[in-house]
């Protein structure tokens, strides 16, 4: 019976089971569908805003449109800094099938060393999001562009992109005046207005490029684009055009600048020329210069080290950061201080036995001419660069009054209006020495300062500025580099200038000028050789700066060492005397053998500026200088 029942199927029972199960299934189906609907309602109703935003972000990309950097012109409209299209090699990793093969092929095509493939691989990772092109190599030459283009079908994901890059046509000559741009670094990135600089890769690092960064840069624009998932732009949804940077016109004269650089003739040093009435810097040369274009694309380590380790310090902007003892070039200023303080009169004389002694001191402070100049008045003291006169004057003035009067000429201060990175150099004082060395000021130190030695250090720009103020009979102008921003002229004079310099009797300016003219043309003038054939009245003052220390390098051979131990030659001048159009300072490092070398350069500058229509003859000048360098001239 039981066995029978086992084998017997019961359709009704099975149907009942099925019905129950089917009912359960329906319940489950409805419940699970309800779950799905709940989930969908959650996504589409509750979270709708979140996903809407996300989808919008997916679709719409805001692309920065970097502005074109303003160009820089010299005072005559010659181009000093331009933007040149360059070509960069980029790679989108997602589009590359075989990265190794692609990089190997690129290295092969561009004829680069094999190591470059590894560098390419590293750079191919440097981007912020997928499908963003990574920069493999910048500044491809035409040949390289052609090779990549021809093989494009083998190089999916590799593109040659055009980009505007700063270019300095006369980089070596101009760089210390212009400065240069370089890639924005992390530090700058942190402080920049990111909206303004969106898409900009370069920023002014030094010089005019840095000082006028705001004007030159402009304002970034934006473009809203719809892209697909691969980052391809499908259409433009909106656009704000960038505001291009403003062009900058400088006061510099490219011809003067070039001449000054040529005049340096491979020596180290600096020439600064200023228009005294306006403060316009006509030339500001620091030699040697360097090719700042290397810094735009990013200089390689070896080249940078080469520049850094170059004993001539080409990266060093001597014109505004070089510290030189002014030597005798400051004698006219000290004489003015003596007049202003009533310590001397133009006609009072001293007797120079060839040395000066402090009261109760046996030490002799020597004149450069061993046997002395005999009777010396103010004008002669300038013309022959007598030391004894200034020992006496300095002693009578005292360091405090020297400091104050010289500071009034801008020594020890930043004088430039729009000069980036200027050094104050050093105008010593009692307080300074106390603070620096915790020592009192000794009277002997005042005497050193009296002939522009000792602690006193000036920059070529300071010396040129002081000369300009002197040429203006005490009226201050601040030197400046820019004359126009866009089409708008900047005010002719910089409003905030130090107070003008007053002396009791205005005719005494002429007496100082007369002394300085005698330097050039007097029978005893220290630069009388330079003054030969002058077609206008010129005032100048020579100087020699003793080289105290040689720097660090001991490896250099004796000959080189000796060369670098020679004195610096300095000269300051302005012309024409009655209506000064140019004030100039010249410093030639280790020129030795007297100041005439620097004087020749100064005259070449004034000649060229005053006779702009003439062609300067650098060769002739060079011969004259070589002729002079052979002799031992006065201080």
């Amino acid at each position, binding site marked *: 019976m039981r066995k029978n029942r086992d084998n017997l199927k019961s359709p009704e029972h099975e149907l009942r089971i099925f019905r129950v199960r089917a009912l359960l299934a329906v319940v489950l189906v409805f419940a699970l569908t309800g779950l799905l609907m709940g989930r969908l309602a959650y996504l589409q109703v509750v979270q*709708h805003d*979140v996903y809407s935003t996300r989808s919008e972000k997916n679709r719409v990309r805001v692309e920065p449109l970097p502005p074109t950097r303003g160009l820089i012109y010299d005072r005559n409209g010659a181009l000093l800094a331009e933007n040149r299209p360059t070509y960069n090699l980029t790679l989108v990793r997602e589009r590359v099938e075989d990265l190794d093969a692609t990089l190997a092929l690129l290295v092969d095509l561009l004829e680069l060393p094999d190591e470059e493939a590894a560098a390419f691989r590293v750079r191919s990772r440097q981007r912020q999001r997928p499908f963003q092109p990574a920069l493999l190599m910048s500044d491809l030459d035409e040949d390289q562009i052609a090779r990549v283009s021809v093989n494009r079908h083998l190089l999916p994901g590799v593109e040659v992109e055009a980009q505007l890059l700063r270019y300095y046509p006369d980089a070596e000559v101009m760089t210390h005046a212009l400065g240069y741009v370089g890639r924005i670094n992390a530090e700058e990135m942190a402080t920049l207005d990111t909206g303004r600089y969106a898409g900009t890769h370069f920023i002014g690092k030094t010089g005019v490029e840095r000082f006028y960064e705001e004007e030159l840069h402009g304002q970034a624009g934006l473009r809203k684009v719809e892209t697909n998932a691969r980052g391809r732009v499908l259409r433009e949804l909106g656009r704000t055009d960038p505001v291009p940077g403003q062009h900058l016109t400088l006061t510099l004269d490219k011809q003067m600048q070039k001449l000054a650089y040529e005049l340096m003739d491979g020596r180290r040093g600096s020439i600064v020329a200023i228009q005294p009435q306006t403060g316009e810097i006509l030339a500001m040369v620091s030699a040697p210069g360097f090719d700042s274009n290397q810094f735009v694309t990013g200089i390689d380590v070896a080249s940078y080290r080469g520049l850094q380790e170059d004993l001539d310090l080409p990266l060093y902007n001597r014109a505004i950061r070089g510290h030189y003892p002014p030597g005798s070039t400051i004698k006219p200023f000290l004489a003015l201080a003596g007049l202003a303080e009533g310590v001397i009169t133009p006609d009072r004389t001293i007797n120079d036995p060839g040395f000066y002694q402090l009261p109760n001191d046996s030490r002799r402070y020597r004149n450069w001419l061993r046997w002395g100049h005999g009777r010396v008045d103010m004008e002669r003291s300038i013309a022959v660069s007598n030391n004894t006169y200034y020992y006496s004057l300095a002693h009578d003035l005292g360091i405090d009054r020297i400091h104050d009067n010289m500071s009034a000429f801008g020594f020890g201060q930043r004088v430039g209006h729009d000069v980036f990175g200027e050094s104050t150099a050093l105008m010593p004082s009692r307080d300074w020495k106390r603070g620096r060395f915790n020592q009192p000021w000794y009277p002997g130190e005042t005497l050193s300062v009296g002939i522009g030695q000792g602690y006193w250090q000036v920059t070529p720009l300071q010396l040129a500025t002081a000369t300009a103020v002197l040429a203006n009979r005490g009226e201050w102008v601040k030197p400046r580099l820019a004359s126009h921003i866009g089409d708008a002229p900047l005010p002719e004079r910089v409003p905030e200038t130090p107070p003008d310099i007053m002396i009791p009797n205005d005719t005494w300016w002429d007496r100082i000028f007369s002394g300085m003219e005698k330097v050039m043309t007097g029978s005893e003038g220290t630069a009388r050789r330079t003054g030969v054939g002058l077609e206008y009245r010129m005032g100048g003052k020579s100087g020699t700066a003793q080289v105290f220390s040689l720097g660090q390098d001991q490896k250099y051979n004796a000959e080189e060492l000796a060369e670098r131990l020679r004195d610096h030659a300095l000269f300051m001048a302005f012309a024409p005397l009655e209506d000064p159009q140019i004030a100039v300072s010249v410093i030639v490092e280790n020129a030795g053998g007297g100041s005439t070398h620097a004087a020749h350069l100064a005259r070449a500058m004034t000649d060229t500026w005053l006779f702009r229509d003439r062609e300067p003859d650098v060769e002739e000048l060079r011969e004259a200088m070589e002729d002079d360098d052979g002799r031992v001239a006065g201080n």
Partner: protein
Amino acid sequence: MGLMIDLSRALRPYPVRAPASGISRRRSLWERLHLDPWLLGMLLVLMAAGLVVLYSASGQRLEAVIAQGIRFGVAFAVMFFLAQLTPATLLRWALPVYVLGVLLLVAVELVGDVGMGAQRWLVIPGVIRFQPSELMKLAVPLMVAAYLSRQELPPRLRDIAVCLVLIAVPVVLIAKQPDLGTSLLVTSAAVFVVLLAGLSWRFITALAVIAAAALPLLWANLHNYQRQRVLTFLDPNSDPLGSGWNIIQSTTAIGSGGVFGKGWLQGTQSQLEFLPERHTDFIVAVLGEEFGLVGIIAILLLYLLIISRGLWLAVGAQDTFGRLVAGSIILTFFIYVFVNVGMVSGILPVVGVPLPLVSYGGTSSVTLMAGFGILMAIHAHRRLLPR
């Protein structure tokens, strides 16, 4: 009764019942065609809606829509053909088809073609490219139902053991290919048969416990990409540009659609190619983005109606074999829907299950329509059989 030929003594004879009282009434056109008009109508609506969405999802390529339409045509032909078979024929063919399917799976394992990182295709060059695992979606439940319908129900331990073997052999072969989606569907189809046959709750509980215990073992045997999918499911943002991308983009597409959607062809996620596999497995995201919650719910309701109708037909089937097969087919259909929508909306891990009759793809449509053909055969032939 001449149609009834006993092929195997191993299988018990199909139970023959006494004829129903009186002769059958006049048969309608639908009855003569052996089709269920309600089910057919709803399937047609679903397919039409699917083609509309597909046009948008395929990047507005009419060719894709036409190709899909042709496949639907083929699928209808298959459905129509299968609807003409009697349940008895199906019962007789269950074993041979099952054996053939297993042999083909073994063949795939040995000489199969690799596509998309998995070995699923059997290719006779120039003739046909064919996935035997698709066949198993129907062959396995048919086999299990054929077996169980000859046993006294509810099934006893021995029956369950036999069923487990019947299920495990093909599923393991399919999972090895690897094809997680299909093995899941085959398993659920067969398990539905066993469950509908009245598997006792004790067994169900025990199986659930065993399944839970087997999870670590399963995990250990998963392919890396499969594990990655599961991990990504748990936290899509862990790999937003890799395997999390699909889920992030599909939930974004659905969520951004809102209640009424962005409009047909206006879905930015879909049209701008942010959505991967948007015309195949992820097509519901396109639907959700362009037609909103309203659109998805409409489609889900349509599915519910189809499933309800299918279950109704299953309950009305003449015998146990028919009921089990019909029930399994319609519940598996639901599994498609649930797993697909669940994965695209981010509540289930990504497994390759298409949205039935909407996703682009020929094989699954044909299999699904074949299933509906069988369902209709079971329904339409009940009065032809003597009661």
